[in-house]
């Protein structure tokens, strides 16, 4: 059927080279594949969330995909007002009959890049720089640590969060300082889950001749040869599928959990990082993928109990 989709990005904007950009890529791909036009909106402040959703709904847009956990409050208000409109939210669960909630097993993907990091590091030390200190980002960190320890039990993982407020997503200078500090302490690989702040992390790693690990989108190409890999979160797939499911009359509400098994998370493997991934590493990461999918390895989700045993 004909659909009239719309996307509301989070504050980072659709060109954040990360999370939102991934959503944008999905919408764009759908538009190119099917010739369907879509509308999107970049927020400038919190009150606009509701406004944008309501506005799109009123104008008859369907489905409306909202990106980011911060949209939850607004969506909880707007979705009931438009029971016939289909909404999807990424990264958060909103339990309403016309809302599809898509969440990812970031810990699984982080496990894989942690494993790669530990194998690539010569110093037995790796680092992690998070954005805002929230359970979601802790889950990234915890999976990463578990993966790294699995590859090298002696490894030391430095972990820093950029801040406690939204500004932490957009502070490349501080990200760079944190990464530098970890590198100065001996870290050979630094993984970031910090949105715009990550640009500073990857830059610092590249400047120091060390390796960075990107997040959300495939960031391998930002500093080719200096980014070990990226923990790709297939937000694009989630957005694409939301559009496609409605068009194909296969829409379902409820919670979609996308992990390794569902291809929802992955490690980025492309020509930019080919030389960095040895055969041994490749074999290990592929084995780990299989084991996780098979349930042989259980990656701990920080959000389940708010603790990280690693």
């Amino acid at each position, binding site marked *: 059927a004909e659909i009239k989709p719309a996307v509301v990005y989070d504050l980072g904007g659709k060109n954040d080279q990360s999370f939102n950009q991934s959503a944008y890529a999905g919408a764009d791909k759908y538009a190119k594949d099917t010739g369907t036009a879509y509308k999107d909106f970049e927020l400038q402040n919190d009150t*606009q969330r509701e406004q944008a959703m309501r506005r799109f709904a009123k104008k008859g847009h369907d489905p409306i995909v909202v990106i980011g956990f911060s949209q939850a409050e607004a969506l909880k208000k707007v979705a009931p007002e438009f029971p016939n409109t289909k909404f999807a939210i990424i990264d958060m669960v909103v339990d309403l009959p016309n809302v599809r909630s898509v969440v990812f097993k970031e810990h699984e993907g982080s496990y894989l890049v942690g494993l790669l990091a530990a194998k690539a590091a010569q110093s037995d030390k790796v680092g992690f720089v998070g954005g805002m200190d929230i*359970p979601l980002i802790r889950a990234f960190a915890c999976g990463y640590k578990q993966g790294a320890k699995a590859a090298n039990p002696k490894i030391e993982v430095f972990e820093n969060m950029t801040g406690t*407020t939204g500004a932490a997503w957009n502070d490349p200078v501080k990200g760079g300082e944190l990464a530098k500090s970890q590198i100065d302490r001996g870290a050979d690989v630094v993984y970031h889950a910090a949105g715009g702040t990550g640009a500073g992390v990857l830059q610092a790693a590249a400047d120091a001749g060390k390796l960075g690990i990107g997040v959300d989108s495939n960031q391998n190409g930002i500093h080719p040869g200096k980014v070990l890999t990226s923990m790709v979160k297939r937000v694009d797939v989630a957005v694409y599928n939301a559009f496609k499911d409605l068009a194909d009359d296969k829409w379902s509400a409820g919670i979609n959990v996308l992990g390794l098994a569902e291809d929802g998370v992955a490690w980025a493997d492309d020509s930019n990082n080919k030389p960095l991934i040895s055969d041994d590493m490749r074999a290990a990461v592929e084995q780990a993928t299989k084991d996780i999918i098979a349930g042989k390895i259980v990656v701990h989700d920080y959000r389940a109990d*708010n603790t990280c045993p690693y």
Partner: protein
Amino acid sequence: MSAPLAKLPKWVDYGLIPLLNLTAALLVSGLVVLLIGENPLEAVYWLVQGSLGYGEGIGFTLYYTTNFIFTGLAVAVAAHAGLFNIGGEGQAYFAGLGVALACLALDHYIPWWMTFPFALLGGALFGAAWATIPAYLQAKRGSHIVITTIMFNFIASAVMAYLLVNILKQPGSMQPESRTFVEGGRLPFVHEVLEWIGIKIEHSPLNLSFVVALVACVMVWALIWRTRLGYAIRTMGTNPNAAVYAGMNVSKLTIVTMMISGALAGMLALNEVMGTQHRLLLDFTAGYGFVGIAVALMGRSHPVGIIMASILFGMLYQGGAELAFEMPKITRDMIISIQGLVILFAGAMEHMFRPALIKIFVRKPIAAGAV
């Protein structure tokens, strides 16, 4: 004052000059729109259409207006006393704590209209408290109030972040915000109120604090022009020597005025926290405190002028959001620039057009020095 002292007709002083200053600001903004390759007239169309063209738009415009009335009044009251309160942002932020504490404590037990006076008081007290310290330092220790209020904006932001992250945050929540208030901690929206009496209008965040804002205007007007305190405030702001001569306690006046100013700024929290967001969240002040400076300058520190300037800025904010939908290249940052330009032309360069106007409207200059 540095203004040339020649007297202009009242309508020129209070009507034409602000209008010219505003026009200058808008013209420069138009140039910026041209610079990014869009049509300024189309932008104006969407601005007006988006802010006044339909019910929800009007609701949003008035919701923003509410914020600006409060912060504009805050700057204006201080200005009448010759004080520049640049700390409305921090005072409002801290006042959010007062409003939220009242709502969090009471919302489960009593209806909103019983919570309301406590929230109002909480906001006013916390806002006033945050203004009191710079006021005290100015009055008693001679610290420049502009600098201290700037510093207090930053300190407020750190304090609030600490409280939200470490104390008020819901365990396990992603966002550093308080829990969402239930009915007993929410001011009704205007569309809800009208629904009770059978009128249906479109939804918007416009809530009862708009009425509070209008009442505040009347109260500020009465305070400034009808009370002994207001008289003393104006005397101090116009001629401090005369205030000393008249036996007014200048230190005390400074502190009291700043407390009133801070309390008014604190009402912003009523609109945002209890009226719209129904929870205390980071940075809910979103720069509205600073817009108050522009509003007070444009409105010449008079409540009527402030209401008009607030509506204008409300239109800019709402229309600007609409503009961003329709002309994606013109993001809402455009509005920030326009704001800056208005402050520049209506504030810092307010006398730019005076010499020319004097030539036009005053044939022979009347001397100021009535000896």
